[in-house]
């Protein structure tokens, strides 16, 4: 297992060295290639400014393609390497494509993935670029809605006390609920002794007096 690891790492290093050597071999006067493609305009009539406002940039303007009347484009004089081709239009968004040209002049197009740069998600070449969506530069103004108004804290603050003030007494007037409440009150009376009573009894210390008092009350009754 260890041997395998060793061989593997040696191989890795070799590949690295080869790669760096290969990169250094690039001559200044190398062969150049052409990237071709077609930009599909959005549906509807094309305005005159479409041709001048749509730019095809390779690596952010290192090489430039210009649209023809038939919406095709070529990017000339591109040496071998990797290029991100993007269609720049102020109104419509297009997805960028990475085009790789190897030293033999073979072209390959794939999706741009900046995070996992090694994943190959092939795209058809010659490029066919379709609009994804309209750019949405602007926020949509909020429309006035009744629900928004009702749920705004100000209104809630006003309405809730109103409800409590206006509706609760009405509900209390209902005989059934009153009965229920009384029932509840009688229940709670024994569960929870009155705080003031407890305190007074505690501080006065005389529980007997109180007992007497209650007895007196009973007698009266």
């Amino acid at each position, binding site marked *: 297992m260890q041997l395998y690891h060793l061989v*593997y790492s040696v191989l890795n290093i070799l590949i690295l060295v080869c790669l*760096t050597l290969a*990169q*250094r071999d690039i001559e200044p006067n190398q062969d*150049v290639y052409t990237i071709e493609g077609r930009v599909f305009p959005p549906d509807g009539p094309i305005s*005159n*400014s*479409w*041709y*001048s*406002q749509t*730019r095809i*940039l390779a*690596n*952010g*303007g*290192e*090489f*430039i393609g*210009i*649209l*023809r*009347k038939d919406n095709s*484009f*070529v990017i*000339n*004089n591109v040496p071998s390497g*990797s290029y*991100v081709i*993007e269609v*720049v239009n*102020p*109104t419509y*968004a297009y*997805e960028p494509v990475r085009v790789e040209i190897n030293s033999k002049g073979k072209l390959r197009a794939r*999706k*741009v993935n*900046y*995070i*996992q*740069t090694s994943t190959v*998600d092939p795209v058809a070449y010659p490029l066919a670029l*379709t609009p*994804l*969506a309209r*750019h*949405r*530069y*602007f*926020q*949509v*103004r909020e429309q006035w809605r009744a629900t928004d108004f009702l749920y705004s804290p100000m209104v809630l603050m006003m309405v*809730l006390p109103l409800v*409590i003030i206006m509706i*609760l007494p009405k*509900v*209390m007037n209902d005989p059934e609920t009153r009965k*229920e*409440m009384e029932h*509840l009150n009688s229940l709670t009376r024994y569960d929870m002794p009155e705080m003031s009573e407890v305190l007074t009894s505690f501080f006065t210390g005389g529980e007997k007096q109180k007992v007497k008092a209650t007895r007196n009350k009973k007698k009266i009754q």
Partner: protein
Amino acid sequence: MDEAASCRESESCHENVNGHKILLRLKSIGKSVCSEYSIEKDLSSIVLSPTVHVLVANLFLLLLSFLCSFTVGALISSGVCCIISYNMIWDIRKGHHRTCFIPWNCIKDIYIVEAISLHRVLYNIVVLIEDEVKGSTSSHTSLKLIPLFQGTKPRLSCLETIYQSIHALLRNESGTCGERSKNMSIDSSKFILTVSHCLYEDQVGKFDWHQNYVGDVKFAFGDASGKRGIVATALNVVAALNLKTGNILWRHVLERDGSISFMSITSGGEALVILEGDKTLVRAFDPVTGALSWEWTAPSSLPVDRVSWAVSTDKLYAVLLNDGVGFAVQQFNIRTGAVISKWQSSAPWVQNERQVSNKLLFCSILYPVKSLDKPGVFVDFGSSNTVKSSQVVIFSEQSNVACKAVSSSAQWVINDLSQKSYVLLQFLVKNDELHIITSDCLSGTTLQNSPISVPWPSSLEPELKTVICGSNKDDLSSCRLLLHTSDEAVTLLQHTGKVLWVREEALASVVATEMMDLPVSDKDAAIEKEFDSKEAGVLGMFGRRLVSQALQLQHLMQSVFGLDEPHQPSGQRADLVRDDFGLHKMIVVATKAGKLFGLDNFNGEIVWQKMILNVDTTALQLFVQRTTRHAPYPAQCSLLLKDKVTKESVLYTFNPITGLGSRKNLGYRALQTMLLPVLDAESLRPIVLLDSSEKVHIEPREAISLADSFASSLYMYVADPATGIVRGYTFAQSTSERLIAARVWEVVFQPESQTLVNVVGKNPQERVHSQGRVLGDRSVLYKYVNPNLVAVVTQGTDSLHKFVLNVYLLDAVSGAIVFSISHKRAREPIHLVHTENWVVYTYFSEKWRRTEIASIELYEGKTQSNSGSFSSLIAAPQPLVERQSYILPAVVQAMKPTVTEKGITSRHVLVGLASGAVLELPWMFLDPRRPVTVTPEMREEGVIPYMPELPIPPESIINYNKSLPLISGIHTAPSGLESTSLVLVYGLDLFYTRVAPSKTFDLLKEDFDPFLISMVLIGLGLASYTTKRLASRKALKQAWK
């Protein structure tokens, strides 16, 4: 489909099990789904009794429980988040701190499985993943199952809901490729809803303006219709101008490297443009739409720098001139670029290349080198325009015709007058007037009765680029002349002498800019004058106060009764006065052509312009010596330039409001400059200049004693990119007669291994409001705010890593390197922003082939070493360094942080992109403290979790659909409002706007309606009054009962 509306949240599955509330929250943003499954101990279950009298208490308790659930959080909760834009499902479990990322494209399917354990059936959601395993021999895929919600064991009904939502997503996503990516772009824009500050559509143009330019015009011609003028410029721009208005109809920005060496009209009406560079490109554009007609590459064997071009009906000629011998001609098919034929011809009259310039061949409109031995139309002006007596020679097909020698430099020959005669146009600038003399080329007779004269500043040299005649070619008076002047302006002149329009193309190459406050109005100035002189006694002061208040009253009365006549303060426009919020400013712009402009920042209108002659604008610097706040003195700016011939420094001092100024030749070459940090008696900041022999000068000279009193705390540094040496100087040895700069330290960046790319200091005007940063545990992490810190960027070449980018943070006073970092395989374009306690820079990573943006943040630690003023000389502790880098999916052209008056508002970084967008990137996104694993403390601190790729949502593009090509810089300036920062983006175009990084917290909202509020108040008042009346009536009634 409206994507904004699709952001919704739904809650389902409320269940009460043994006093536990189970809550399933489903959140879908666009096409992404987030579901959170939580079990909480139900606080509200006790209070949910049906009795009525506790309703009020119940309400409050409910509120309380709500608050509790917000602050305390659920006991156990687990969530799954599918964000397609980030290609992943994100499984979060709060209780156990487990986050797992699953790439979206790996997901095959999602299932609900059941398992029996301890006599119970347990349900689980399981994600089926296709994993690519790369072996040594071959790669194969393996299937893996990842269970979600392992710890919390949700109920089946909840799982079903989650399953449905994710499954629906999966089904959608497995559709066509295009559809899938469509979602991607929308989602990435929708994801960061929280921090984007954007414009409403009705605000377009309300506080921004945009001016289009084309650059210094090199070639021009009118198209066949006579309505459009096609121009090609030094900035490699080809554009069509509307000849009536001067507006741009279409514009193409060509490749940056190389230059346009030829442009002509073809027989089909197309504009043929030849771009010289590594490879010479021949392109033809449709004059109406700007679409490309054809494009081909000239053979690389052609020595393009010595070739003159000419066009005939369907052929392009490349004429290679050999001195004294003749010329070699290559004939190309104009559409395909195929070589038709080649020949050589002897022409001993071709003395040297200078005499037969490109311009002359350009004149050969009709018969260029057509026949083998006879050249067509050649015009020879002697040796350019400098020679007084120039000669015009016309070679026609039949015979050589020599024009008569003309006294002054002639500029143009047109031969369109029914092919019979050649018309010679001569320009004479005399006594601030431009005279145009039209004469017959052959006979020499003047064609007009009186020469046309146009008012013209005598310093400007006109150069005729083209003559555009309408359909009626015989009548010369209908022709228009397109003139280019030495200040890079383009003027269209009717042949009768009327100026149709002027385009100030110098604004396409802005070098330096400043935004100046406008002076206060006369009224305010009178009030301020009252406080100025303090020597007057109490009585005098009182008297002045009375007078000024009487004046104010008078102004008030005048304005109330509409008597206020607009009077112009000292010959300016009346509206050029400071407004309440300090938003109205004067933009002072210095351009490459040596022309200064004063622009009104509200509409971009040119208020004043000034051409500085015979100057070299490389390494130009603009200083604000005195702002408008020092009322009796006018504001003053200075521009440091170089003389064109001697290369010695020139200081042009001017008033930025009126543009009036004077020039001063300094007589030495300035190496480094600095504004003194103190004001002199006249509230002026003197400029300290270090010349190439390390002598120190000060402007104005009287300030030398002032500078001497501060000399012990004055330091200066000089970075020399040629030698890679950064040197520090001290002024401590100065005397009151002479300032002396002595070398203190020297840092050498070995020039053989690295080159200095950029040295960025901090903006001396910037203010840092908050001293530190409050952490999650309520302790403070103090910022390392060193005003003397300078970021030095070097680009090294390494045999192994090819490109190495080094960033050093250098203390410019002590010369200590505070921090350094090195990036391997990182290369230009490098842009750096340095403010407060952080540095942000972008570079291109060769290794990953993407633009990365790195941020460094410096902290002193939990204790502050010096709370008063910072000193570089007292050994401060080495700062703690936080650093992080992100992917920016774009190419950067310029970067600048926003700046506000007091520095309270959070900072955003404005990034100019190659696509023409200017992105407003909140510092929060670039924060190096963004954690990969979110801890509760981090959440408390308000740091957003780390995402490798920064999003570019269209909402944060401040120039919306107004693309700005070739952005060369961004200038930010504070306004009187703390929330608002003013932004000028320059490059080929000018774009001005204002941004509010923390929203306009100090302004009432736009939709604030005082009318509505007063109506509501009045209504409430009325209602209370009427109810009071009603109540009293009711009370009365009840009393009667």
